[in-house]
């Protein structure tokens, strides 16, 4: 949502339906604000997120991406969060290869009642991406 004036990054947060997504909701129940330019996408498990989703997101104009899953050893699907972590690393290198800062993608973990932490993560990511500036491959509209 890049409005005129100050740079507002487009950030996509893939959220595990067992942890991060409910966490985002609880931020809602507690009315804790977080930047509106964070786009939450619900996934059944962080392990569902494919490197392709991350690459395509940048093709479509994302400036930063969060993959949010369950805490280590607490994945509803045992290994989903671990896989997500290694995939995010893979994505980092693939992006670097294409000349995009790998810093723009990160995997973090949450529990479903951690609304405040979700908001905090969202804002921190927002600040980081603002620092990095717009994605070098943002399609022109």
């Amino acid at each position, binding site marked *: 949502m890049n409005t005129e004036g100050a740079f507002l990054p487009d950030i996509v947060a893939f959220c595990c339906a067992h*942890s991060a997504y*409910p966490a985002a909701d*609880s931020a809602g*129940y*507690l009315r804790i604000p977080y930047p509106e330019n964070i786009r939450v996408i619900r996934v059944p498990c962080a392990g569902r997120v494919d490197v392709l989703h991350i690459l395509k997101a940048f093709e479509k104009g994302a400036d930063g991406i969060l993959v949010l899953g*369950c*805490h*280590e*050893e*607490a994945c509803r699907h045992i290994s989903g969060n671990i896989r997500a972590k290694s995939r995010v690393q893979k994505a980092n290198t693939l992006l670097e290869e294409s000349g995009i800062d790998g810093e723009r993608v990160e995997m973090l*973990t949450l*529990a*479903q*009642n*951690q*609304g*405040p*932490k979700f908001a*905090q993560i969202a804002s921190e990511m927002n600040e980081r991406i603002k620092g990095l500036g717009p994605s070098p491959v943002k399609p022109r509209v």
Partner: protein
Amino acid sequence: MADNGFEVYLVEKEPTIGGYAASFCCKATETCSKCSVCLVPEKMLEVAANPQISLLVNSELVGISGEVCDFSVELVQKPTFVDPERCIACGICTESCPSEPSKGIYLPAPAAVPRTYIIDKNQCLRFKGAKCNICRDMCPTGAVDFEQKPKKRRLKVSAVIVATGFDAFDARQKGLLGYGRYPNVLTGLDLERRFNAEGSISLPSNGKAPQNVAFIQCVGSRDEYIGNGYCSQVCCKYAMRFARLLQYQNPEARVTIFYIDLQTAGKGFGEFYEKCKGAIRFVHGVPVEVSEISPDELEVRYEDPVEGKVAKETHDLVVLSVGITPRKDSWDLAKVLGINLGDYGFFDTQDPLDGTATNVEGIFLAGTCQGARDIPESIAHGVQAASRAIQTLTARGD
């Protein structure tokens, strides 16, 4: 039980299910510390989603007659002045409520199930005599009804499962430990709730992050003098998890745990304890007195095993690991149901091998109302009770 096609009435005294555990916080650092708190909201949503379960909140069981497979129970539903059939939990009533600082109408918990707001008679201006109708007028669905009266209802049920839970030990009974007198003396329960609400812990006295924390174990447990001659089973684990969490958030923070015996048994917990060993100072022996030397400094007096004499040391935060005690109202319920109270005031079990059977056939016990348990074990006990109930019903071809 409902998963097995049985119809279930879930009767809760409070306006939301979930009990204490629903107010607990996640204790994970990067890695999950297996506190199991995340199970609770999941179970709550399962209940909400299950058509076989009818939720009766704000309700108390006042009478029972009949026998197994043919009980008739009598409930009284306290008014909450909001119609659950109408409330859509939009929150506009709370926003518009003029009562300050604390609102007269609110959602009992952020993730309350059912998601129905309630009016708090002690806060609501109208119930304090003012002519305030704001929430009723604001409510888009006309769910607010100041005239609501207590409802009586009768249910025909085949079996009853008692899962009334526990009360946390009231640390005030241990006056010397300063709870309620000094702001920086908190209980484990307080810690749970603060973490849950704020996501971190700050000193009540000055809002700074605690640097030097003491956990005092077995407050209200393993204590024959106050009649709690049992181990609460949860305190060592939550204390160590909190200790790790505090240090995760503030690596500088020093943590001391005063204990009698560390309960490190349980799958995977041994490993967790080994991780704690380096980071946490464990002192054998439980302090007798906590006193305040300055608003931000507490002095803990304890028997120092190394020196063999009473030692003093200062901390900025003291956490009392309060134990699990029987609910104050257990006795009333026992009277109503005609079931026995056993050791220390928990509900008593008939069969030494079966923690769920009571002296009344068709009435079963589950969870901490029968004795101290942690979350997964309480759930397991609940499942056992359900299993027993189903077995009884199957046996009688019900």
